[in-house]
């Protein structure tokens, strides 16, 4: 598969901080990509460079095989920033039309697409309402529509589910899957790891302006697994003495074991089979993204990221 976006050695330094410090990665067409990181890691700065709001100090952005052109490539990108809002006094329909025209759509084209999306998300009755009449969830929905309306190749969503109830969140989630299936690429930035685990194919974790993790969700989990297995037995024998593993935890009939160096999962299974114990369940424990995230970020003191002097 070809790449929709490639970042090469992007840097953006502020007066007191290296907001983005030499980050490179690429995103495949049609994938759902998770950009993760603690607060202040440089995610927003990175996204603003990808959307052309900021220019990088150095490094290169390649969009769809060509050097990124912030002025003409706007139509290819849909960006829903974390700090987002709408004109409060403007009517919903006019607002959607205005935002679509700003992206570069003609009026008739924009109208057609607004009608399609409003119908799809059951928002037709909103047309003449003002934003101040909408609930937070409703305006989130409207913002999502205005972001994807012009069918951009690259959709960037920063915390898209904040403030949405589970029903509406699912609705948006389905739309995201749908867009990805139709060939759109979605960059998804969030702190909510369970959503990332559920939705994303590929993730990058940034911290202190640097990339510290890059890979598919399953490969990352493999990378950080601790070789722990969970076994459920009908009855637990009095003493466990095996070369292949050590007992970590025991809850009733459930054992958590850690495999020793040089052994495999089957060795554990074999031990219990040899002892003629009936096994009810046996599975490997993979770390959740949440645990990986906390593990990687906690030691770095990123939560108290100090201001530094940038002289170069």
């Amino acid at each position: 598969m070809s790449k929709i976006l490639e970042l090469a050695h992007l840097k953006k330094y502020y007066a007191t901080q290296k907001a983005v410090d030499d980050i490179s990665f690429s995103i495949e067409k049609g994938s759902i990509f998770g950009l993760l990181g603690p607060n202040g890691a440089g995610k927003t700065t990175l996204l603003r460079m990808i959307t052309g709001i900021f220019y990088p100090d150095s490094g290169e952005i390649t969009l769809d095989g060509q050097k990124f052109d912030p002025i003409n490539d706007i139509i290819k990108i849909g960006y829903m920033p974390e700090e987002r809002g709408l004109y409060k006094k403007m009517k919903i329909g006019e607002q959607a039309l205005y935002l679509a025209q700003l992206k570069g759509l003609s009026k008739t084209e924009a109208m057609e697409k607004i009608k399609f999306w409003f119908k799809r998300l059951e928002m037709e009755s909103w047309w003449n309402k003002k934003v101040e009449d909408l609930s937070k969830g409703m305006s989130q929905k409207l913002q999502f529509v205005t972001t994807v309306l012009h069918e951009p190749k690259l959709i960037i969503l920063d915390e898209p589910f904040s403030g949405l109830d589970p029903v509406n969140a699912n609705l948006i989630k389905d739309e995201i899957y749908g867009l990805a299936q139709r060939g759109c690429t979605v960059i998804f930035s969030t702190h909510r790891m369970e959503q990332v685990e559920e939705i994303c194919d590929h993730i990058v974790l940034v911290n202190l302006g640097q990339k510290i993790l890059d890979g598919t969700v399953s490969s990352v989990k493999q990378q950080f697994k601790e070789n722990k297995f969970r076994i459920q037995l009908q009855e637990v024998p009095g003493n466990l003495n095996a070369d292949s593993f050590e007992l970590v935890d025991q809850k009733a009939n459930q054992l958590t074991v850690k495999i020793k160096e040089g052994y495999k999962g089957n060795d554990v299974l074999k031990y219990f089979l040899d002892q003629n114990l009936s096994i009810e369940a046996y599975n490997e424990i993979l770390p959740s993204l949440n645990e990986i995230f906390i593990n990687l970020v906690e030691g770095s003191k990123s939560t108290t990221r100090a201001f530094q002097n940038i002289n170069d």
Partner: protein
Amino acid sequence: MNKILLVARREFLTRVQKKTFLLTTIGLPLIIFGFYAMIIYFSVKTTDNFRVAVADKANIFNGKIESKDSEVIFEFVQADSAALPELISSKKYSASLYVPTGFTLNGNDSLQFKSNKAVGLMTREKIQRRINKALEDKRYEAMHISKAQIDSLNQDRDLIKFSTANGKTDGETKVGVSYAVGMISGFLIYIILFIYGTMVMRGVMEEKVSRIAEVIISSVKPFQLMMGKITGIGAVGLIQFLIWIVLVFGLQFAIAMLFPSLTESMQGQPIQPAGMQAAQAVKSSGAMNGLMSGLASINFPFIIGCFIFYFIGGYLLYSSLFAAVGSAVNEDPQDAQSLLLPITMPIIFAIVIMTKAVNDPNSGLAIFGSLFPLTSPIVMMARVAHGVPDGVTYFQLALSMIFLILGFLGTTWVAAKIYRTGILMYGKKITWKEMMKWALKKS
């Protein structure tokens, strides 16, 4: 479609379609006119005559005190000083004037004026003027000086003919009219800068507070957004002004058509718009023709052309600065006050120079003020009103215009840099020092 135009169209339409726009654009002049109409109506309609009973025991006035004015009437009565209070309490007269038998014209004796209630300032002044005039005439008479002699003494007034070296007349009325035109257009531009400048600032703040700025910035460049906003609001201002001008002339015309007698009687009234007062002053000095020629000597198409240029130039120059301040302000509108100070200072400074420049259009201060782009929109109007080349040379005018255009490009360039950083900055109180840092930063 060009994105600046798209943004401008939204800014324009959302403002013009608001009910408050109609209210302020059409309602305001109507209210002001209604207010004036009421004042004029009531001042014309004062029916309560102030009747003064004069008991002239010394026969100083010969039974007559000149009173063209219908409001104060002097009536001579044969009554003693004891009987006068009775006349007042009987409501026949409002006041009495008692001239004692031994009254002489040498100025050492005083007259007694008694009224049933406190006399208003205007009436008091009228009474004083009438009586003093009557006394003055009597004194001249006593000294055997005739009216013709007095007039011949005073005739020097128009002896000096002011004119410029190149032979143009430089009449007092023309200077007066230039003064008024300069003052009015200078103040209009001052008001425009403030009203529409703050409108731009509020618009920017609204975008920032409602968090739509970043959404928009991902579709248009910050510069396009800023220029679109400035253009749109500028168009609102122009439309509003055109409507006002049409309304003002229309209403004046309508009033003249509907109440021809009213406009005439208005001329004699003390409370009037400033322009009319000036006209009245000119008229009372017997030089209505002078005023007309003064107005005719002013090149109105030229002045209106200059006005529009400095209106647009000044607005563009300042509105981008107002936009920059708006972008730096967070939720708290209080912050705007302190940030605005460096912008409002030159405008106020300009007004001060302008009031000097209308009197002396060629002073060093006026020349500086009319060339310096931050003050020129206001100050130059004061000089232009005096005409070219009397008030300002063509060279200075051209130079001022070029400086204004350069100034506008400069402030826009600086403001755009502040704006694009400020619009995405949340939660931090920004100082002028930081704003300058953004402005000087390389993009």
